[in-house]
Structure formats: structure tokens, C-alpha cells
């Protein structure tokens, strides 16, 4: 066969043009598939679904922080006083509720559970909202003493009808603060509204001189939290 005729022949392509796209897509997919066993769990543990953020849990009593904090101006530490003294902030004893509610709203049907608990001596069974794993030894008192505002970790509880977890409470989130060099950026996200009526002695404390005065050391060693 003469060469000329061969060269003139137009051979129809074996694969259509779009097969290139398919091929590229397949390579991408393969890479994704290989990465997904690592990436997907990493995404999952960071998702709010796993961290239980933004779930306004139902509680045995429809306790409204908005009313107590904003309307009545009660400080956080009035009820959660052990945050200053203990590792646990705790939920107030029934007697703390009854301290006021023997006098006001003492007939309210909303407070029936509280009265029943107080007079029968059975504790109120609250749902725990903020929780770190058992192998994490978090201490409230030292954070409070070093001037960390309640809202830094718990969000503006005074604006919540039902308490929900705002921050992820993951180790990465803890380390974000603990690794941050002193005074360079405030640990409180600026988007959050300033606490209107909560324990807020710390407004502006993360300006450099205050951080220096208070010697806020940022422990990042493992046994700071894991023992």
C-alpha cells in the first residue's frame, strides 16, 4: 500500500473526547477513595454532629437562663459557685433554687419538679450539656482565677432558652487557646456578643499588660489535662 494514501486516511479516534474527562475524574475519585478512610473520620469528629454543638437539650425543668441572667441580673457564680473553688462548675443544689423560690413563684406549676425534689430529698436529674471525655482533667477554678470569662467556653448562656454547647470542646479547640501567645489575640471570638449580665470581670483582660500581670501561662504539656 502506498504511503500517501495511508497518510491521507483519517482514523476515527478509538475513544471519544469526553473519555479524557472520565479518566481524569476517575483518577480524582481514586485519590479521594484512598484518602477518605482518613479524611472522612477526621471530618466527622470535627463535625458539630459529633461534638454535639448547637443542640438545645431538653431538661427536666424548662429553666430559662435568659430570664435569670438578663432579666434578674443574677451572676453565673451565684448558682455555679464551685467553678471558683473546684474542678467542677457543677449544677446548683435544689436548696439554691429554693433559696429564692420559697419566696417568689412558690406556687408556680413550672417549679413543681424543684419543690418535689426539695421536699422528697431526691436530686433533680439534669442532662449534662458540656462534657469532656473522662480522661481529660479540666479544672474550672484555675481558669476562672486566671480570668477566663465563662462565655469564652460556654457561649452567651444568658441568651439561651435552653443551654446548648457552643464551642466544640475538642482537644484542638483547647490547644488553640493554650498555644496562643500571650496578648496577641483575644480568646473570645469577636462575633459573640459581649456578656450583658454574666460574670465578666475579665472584659479587656487579654490586653497585654493584664495577661502579663496575671501570668497566664499556657500549659500545653500532655499531663496538664491527661493523668
Amino acid at each position, binding site marked *: 500500500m502506498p504511503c500517501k494514501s495511508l497518510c491521507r486516511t483519517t482514523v476515527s479516534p478509538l475513544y471519544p473526547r469526553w473519555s479524557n474527562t472520565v479518566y481524569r475524574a476517575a483518577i480524582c475519585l481514586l485519590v479521594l477513595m484512598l484518602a477518605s478512610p482518613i479524611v472522612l473520620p477526621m471530618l466527622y469528629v470535627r463535625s458539630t454532629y459529633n461534638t454535639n454543638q448547637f443542640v438545645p437539650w431538653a431538661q427536666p425543668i424548662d429553666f430559662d437562663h435568659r430570664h435569670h441572667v438578663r432579666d434578674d441580673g443574677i451572676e453565673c457564680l451565684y448558682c455555679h459557685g464551685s467553678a471558683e473553688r473546684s474542678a467542677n462548675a457543677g449544677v446548683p443544689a435544689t436548696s439554691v433554687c429554693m433559696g429564692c423560690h420559697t419566696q417568689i413563684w412558690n406556687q408556680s406549676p413550672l417549679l413543681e419538679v424543684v419543690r418535689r425534689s426539695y421536699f422528697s430529698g431526691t436530686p433533680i436529674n439534669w442532662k449534662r450539656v458540656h*462534657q469532656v471525655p473522662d480522661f481529660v482533667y479540666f479544672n474550672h477554678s484555675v481558669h476562672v482565677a486566671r480570668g477566663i470569662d465563662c462565655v469564652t467556653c460556654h457561649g452567651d448562656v444568658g441568651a439561651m432558652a435552653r443551654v446548648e454547647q457552643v464551642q466544640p470542646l475538642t482537644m484542638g479547640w483547647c490547644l488553640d487557646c493554650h498555644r496562643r501567645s500571650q496578648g496577641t489575640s483575644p480568646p473570645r471570638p469577636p462575633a459573640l456578643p459581649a456578656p450583658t449580665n454574666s460574670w465578666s470581670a475579665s472584659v479587656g483582660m487579654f490586653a497585654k499588660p493584664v495577661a502579663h500581670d496575671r501570668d497566664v501561662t499556657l500549659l500545653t504539656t500532655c*499531663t496538664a489535662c491527661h493523668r
Partner: protein
Amino acid sequence: MTHRPRDLRVLPAGDPAEDPEFPPGVDEPPSELDRRAVMKLLAAGAGLAGLGSIAACMEAPSKRIMPRVVEPPELTPGVPLEYATSMVLDGFATGLVVTAHEARPTKVEGNPDHPASLGATNQLHQASILELYDPDRPRGALEAGVPTSLEALLRSIARRAPMPGLWFLLHPQSSPLGADLIDRVRARHPTARFAWYSAVDRRSVYQGARRVFGRPLEPQYRFDLADVIVSLDADFLAAMANSVRWSRDFANRRRLRTPEDRMSRLYVAEPCPSPTGSLADAALPARPAEIRTLAAAILARLEGRADDHALSPRHERWTAAAAADLRAGRGLVVAGDRQPAEVHALAHLINAAIGANGTTVAFTAPAVIDPLGPGLSELAEEIRRGGVQTLVIVEANPVYSAPAALDFAALLARVPETICSAVTHHETSRRCRWFIPLAHYLESWGDARAYDGTISMIQPLIRPMYQSATLPELLAAFAGTEQPDTHRMLLDRYEHGDPLAWQRLLQRGVVTGSAPRGFVPPIQLTAGDRQALVAPTPAEPTGDAAIELAFAPSHAVYDGRFAGISWLQEMPKPIDKITWGNAALLSPATAEALGVGDDDVVRITAGKAQVELPVFVVPGHADRCATLELGYGRWAATPTAEGVGANVYPLRPLATPAYATGAQAGVRIEPTGRRSRLARTQEHFTQYGRDLAPTADLETYRAQPDFTAHLWGDQPTWLPDKRHGTPQWAMTIDTMICSGCSACVVACQAENNVPVVGADGVRRNREMHWLRIDTYREDRGDRVEYVHQPMLCQHCEMAPCEYVCPVYATQHSPDGLNEMIYNRCIGTRFCSNNCPYKVRRFNFFDYTEPTPAPLRLQYNPNVTVRARGVMEKCTYCVQRIRSAEIRARKANREIQPGEVVTACQQACPTGAIQFGQLQHEGTEMVERRKQARHYAVLHDLDTRPRTAYLAKISNPNPRLP
């Protein structure tokens, strides 16, 4: 994978005479040699650990918060409280400070204000908290095995008319309140008699004093003032009534700060090396029956009389050296509790002869009530005569511990009415008609006297977990009080209308100044009596058949009453490192003569009683003698206690309960040809020529103070220096004053939620102790020198474990700790393989998961309860460091010297373990590191351990070879 430590029963329960002693197959090769099984285990363990940690990460907040209805003002959830109380052992109180988390006691520590503690404890105090949470504690009163009302029982007792033939059998008591109540009982029941019984009998101490001084007295020793101490079979550092205090006193005199310091010289004559004997400068192996001859020979030499005692040349040399030293220096002679009254009398005479009375020894009236009152034999006699109508037994367990010749079980059956009260059921309580649960001391009010007579308070940490009564309440019921209340009785006695003073008293735990002053009574000894004392003992038969048995309370379970405490069962005993059982301890020569070696089972016969025990050979043991530990072989106790070891109580002769001589009791030891592997934690006791635990005698040390210089200092390295930042934590351990008593081992277990693995686990080297005591012995010709080296994570600055962890689960902290992060550990065990000190422990099984409900309450909430498949190790009690840091940060100050005390340091009676910051100049920990004799273990590896040791210096008599 057949072993689950769910049930810690290692041996079948039952009568030791009928059942085979050990289950078949126990001497088969251990399965850890089976490589395939190990690989399977490893894979399963790692897989499960991985799954577990993933599951933990994904846990949803399912927990609830249930706050109290009314919060007590002193209680803040998460803030532990400490209360002063006391633990009483055979009448003598030791002051304690007990930590309670959310009103559940978790940790026992010593009360620094208490003269018998000075802040330290022994292993029994540390472990006693576990008995409180024993799942097998009885829940209520029983009548013939049927539950009954305790209140009604006490009421009916209170309403009884005067009872003829009423006998009480109690442990020795020192409670001032108890003494009053006994008088009240006697007033209501005029014929009531009180007998005192403990298997560890101290009567001979009082008899010896009575013989010399005309009345029973308690000798008060001053080991801190003595230059020469001669112990006649007295383990005064670990096994006597005031040992915790005496350990501190002894160490204060002994510890060298500079090579020029003076240190005391310790002579010990005893059958089997004890913790005291392991610190001796001149240890003499002597059979118990030989001790009297030794004492008489020393006295004869001191008085310049011709020594007509037939002594072997070695004993002759020892007594000559001891007598010469006693005469030269400020001496002190101590006789052991188990020695007969003559030895105690001789010790008093020696102390008088060398002028020790008034300097190193003083006397007080005994703290215990009626020290020479009736005992078990008087009670037995009365039962045989038919004079006992009602027998009330509190705590004592004579059915288990009485000599076989007494046959107490048969006697007990002859008593019409029997009432028994105990914290847990025991052999005696199961044979009594009525059973009254006794409150644990951590649930009780009460008072007692310490060894020196100081009144100590007992206050409860927790409401009684079950229906129970205290001993004062029981006595008050017999005195006619229908609803006895110990708290009320104590208030009546101590409050004096001043509630504030009462609060202060409880806070302090002791009545200040209530100890009587010591005095020196005149010797009232007739010439004839004296002659009888110093006369030579009749010669004993010396044939090969003549073998002597020495009985000693167990260092772990005492007389058996603590056998239900798994921490103590698993505590390696100081000299032989045996756990979960007892052995016949023999000298190498005796074992050779019998043709037996370690783990060979021998049959021991004394009279009609026979016991089979595996042998363990202890160099330094007296020849022709076997030491047998009491307290094992319980057959009707709690499941942990039952069937562990063999009960040797039946071998004890009536006349001399502490030892049995061949001639007197027909003692025979014969091999059975069987073997039974003892659960030991240490297999080799030599250093194989390596300088692991260097020792020197005082002269060598003075000539060359830096004899450990080659064991200290940095070697060239490529690795970066990690000594940066402040503070830097470190530990110093003085092996010179460590007696190996193991209080630290149990304290560590209690503080750090260390699990128990059972005898089988120990046999497979799976014990979980974070802190062990390595004991090395060296043959020095005539004597065996021991050195105890507490071995825990060394917190190396160049830690080999840190380089090999693939997941960074072990890291170095800026303050010098080698951290272990359990939730990150995947259980590869590379770190353990790379640790030259072998202080890392692996959770092969879920040792903590089957923890029964009440036992969980003991867990320290500040330490992770580790799951299966993770590596764990000593953390220098990092939870205590971090809480001290938080305390200091909140108060805006630095951590003070002495603020952080590790659990082992806190428990150590001699103060051998010191912990602190390297920056704190002037503290004991730092000062000791500057001494010439400090060294690092395995220094040549350049791991740069943060734990420094001080070499053991002994002070032998140059005239003794």
C-alpha cells in the same frame, strides 16, 4: 487466654488436710513461652484497645448531673476533704489522715501530729481502706445464719438480766472509753470475764518486764539516740507495734549526710532475714531457741562473768563484738515480741548493765488494758469446765488461728450461746450462733491509745455502709444501754462543754500531752531468779532430724485478718518477693540436706498436724530451721482470702506459740517430690557483677567518698538537652535506710488505681505495680548483705521509651516528667521493650472492668482507670503536682518546698524517698543529691534519670569477719 482475674481465688477452698494443696497442672510450663499465644494476645489486645479508643472518641454526652438537694457547707463537689482518724492494730493506734472524695474515703495517709505515725504509715494502714469496700462484707446481723434485726438484738442484749458465765474474747484493747465500758459491763454482769487474744501475742513483753521490774511495763525505745542496737529476733522496723515511728527514729540516727557523720551499728540475731535484718551491719542467723543463749552470753560478757554458754565459734564472735560495742557506745537491746519472757528479762538486764535504761530506754505503763489478763488458754480451760454460758467474740478468730492441740472449734461448740462480731465473716464467726457485723474503723467513732500512750481519736469518714455496730456500742449494749451511740459516749467523755475544743481535738486526731512520762523502775530481781535467768540453756539435740520451726506473722496479711485485701496478697514480701501465699523458708544448707530447692513441696509435721508448703531458699537463714508465715490458708473467709497459701497455725505448739523445736514438738520436714511454683515477682537476687545498687562499708566510704563517681554525670550525646524551664521535678532515694517494708508499693497502688492481677498473673510476670522494690543480696563470706532499691519510672531526661513510641503517647514535659498518655496509647509495647529499667506495665486484660460495685468507690478520681491494652507506669504522682500547681496559680504564688509529696514518699516510714524541685535548694531531696554517694542506675546508658539513688553504706564491726 484462659486467665481472667475476675475471681482472685487461686487455690481450691476447703480443708487443707483433705484437698490437694495445689490444683493439678500448676507446674506446667507457663504459656508465655508459647510464641503463638503471645502473638494472638497481642493482636487481640491491640485491636480491642484501638476499638475502645475510637469508641471513646465518639461517645455522646449521655451523662446526667444529679446535684445534691442540700449541699453540706463543707463540701464542694470535686474538692477532696481530709479527716484525722486512727487505725488500731492489736490495741495500738496509729494516727492517720484519710482523704475523702465526695464523702467516700479513697486514700489513707499518716498523721504528722501523731507520735506513732509522724506522717508515715505501713503497708497495712495503706491497704486497710480496701477492706471498707470489700464486696463480701456482711450486710446485717444473723441468727443461726438467718438475717435478723441488729437493733432488736442489741436491745435484747441490753435487757438481759445479769448473765452467769459471760465471757468476752477480744483483741487487746487500749481505748479509754472501752475501759470504762468494760467496768460498766462488769457492774451489770458481775461474773463477766474478759479474755484477750491475738494470734500475734505480746504477752511475753509484759511478762519479761514483770519478771525484772515486778510489774508489766511497756519499753519505750529511743532508736534515734542509740549508737549500738542489738536486736534479739526483733524486727523493730517493720513488724512491731511502734515500727512506723521507730523506723523514722532509726533512720534519723543512721542516715549519713557527710562521710564523717556518725551512724549507728545494728546487730541482728534472727532466724530469717527480716526488713530489720536486711539493714543489719552484723546479722547473725540464729534459731529462735538460740536467742536466749545469745542474750545470756552477752549479759555474761558485760558483767565480766565466765561465759559458760555453749556457743558456736560464730555466735561466740558475734556476742563478743556486740558486748564490746554495747559497753563502748550508747547501746540499746531490743527483744522480739515472739521471744519468751526470759529473753525480754535478759534484754532489760543488759540495758540496765550498759546504762541504757534512762537514756535509750524508758518505761511506761502499758497502753493496753489488762496486759496480762486471761488469754485463750484460760478461756479454753473454763469452757472445758463448763463455766462459759455465753461467749462474745469480737474480731478474734481463734477457730482459725488457735494451735491444733487446743481444738478450739470443738470447744466453741460446747458453749450454749455464742455471739461473734467481725468486719468480714471468718472461720470463727461462721461457727457462732449470732453474728453482728462490726463497723470498719473508717465508719466508726472511737478512741484508743498509741504505743506511747497518746490518746488518739477515731472518727468516721463515711456512714456505715451496712448495718453494723462498733465495739463500744456492743459493750454498751451489754452494760444495759438499749440504743448505744459511740459518738454520744465520746462527746460525754471528751467534749467538756466546749464544742470548739472538741472540733480541734478531732482535727488534730490526738489528745496533746496524753502520753505518760517514761520512767526507769528499780530492778526487783531476787538472786535466785537472776541465777535462773542467766543459767545456760540445756543442750539441744543436734542430730540432723532436729529441725526448728519459726512462726512469723506475715508481712502482707499479718495474722490472717488482712487476707481478704488483694493489695496485700499481691504485695511482694520484702525478702523473698513471694505474693499470694506462703512458703517454707529454708537456708541453703538445710535445703540441700533435705534434697529440696525452690518450689519443691515439703510436708511439715509437728505433732499430729501436717502442712504441705513449697520451699523457698533464703541465704542468710539459720540452718536447721524453717520459717513459716502465718495468716494464709484461710478456709472460710472472703473469696480473696480463701485457699491462698497454707495454714501453718495448727503446727504451733501450745507452750511456745512462736516456734516449735524438733525435740519438743516432733517436727519433721520431708520432701513430697511434687513441685508448686510460687508467685514471685523477682527471680534473681544477684547483680551479676553490675553496679546496679552499689554498697560500701563506712571505712571504705570515708577513705573514698566518691566511690560512685563512675555512676553519675552526663556522657557525650547528640541529643538536645532537656533541662530547661522551671520547675524541674526529681526524686532521691536513699537505699541506706530503705528496709524494703513495701508501704510505698501499697501506697502507690492505692493512689494510682493500680489493678491486681492474681497469682497466675504474677507467675506470668504481669503484675502491674508501678513501684517495685528490687532486692539484691551479696554473699560477704560469713554474712549476706541485702540492699533494697525501690524501682519506679526514673523519668529519664533522655528517655529511651520516648523515642520509640509510634503515636507519641509518651513524651517529656517541660518540668522534667516522662509523661504517659493512656488515651493515646495503642499498646505496641515498644516503650516497654526499650525501657532498661523495666518499669512500664502493660494491661494485658481488662483488670479494672470487673471491679465490683463497692470497690469502685475506692478509685482515686484524679487518676485515669486504665483500660485494657495500654501501657502504664509511675508518673511521679503527676495528679498531685498538677493540683499543687493549680493551688499555687490561684493564690498567685510559687509552689513551696514540700508542697508536693508523692504517695510513696508520704508513706515511707524511714523517709528514704524524697521528692521535690531541683530549684528548691536546701530541701532534703536536693541536699541528698549533692552527697558523694549518689548514683544513677544503669548510668552507662546515659538515660540521665531524674531519680537519683544514694548508695547503701553499712557500718560493720571491723573485728567481725
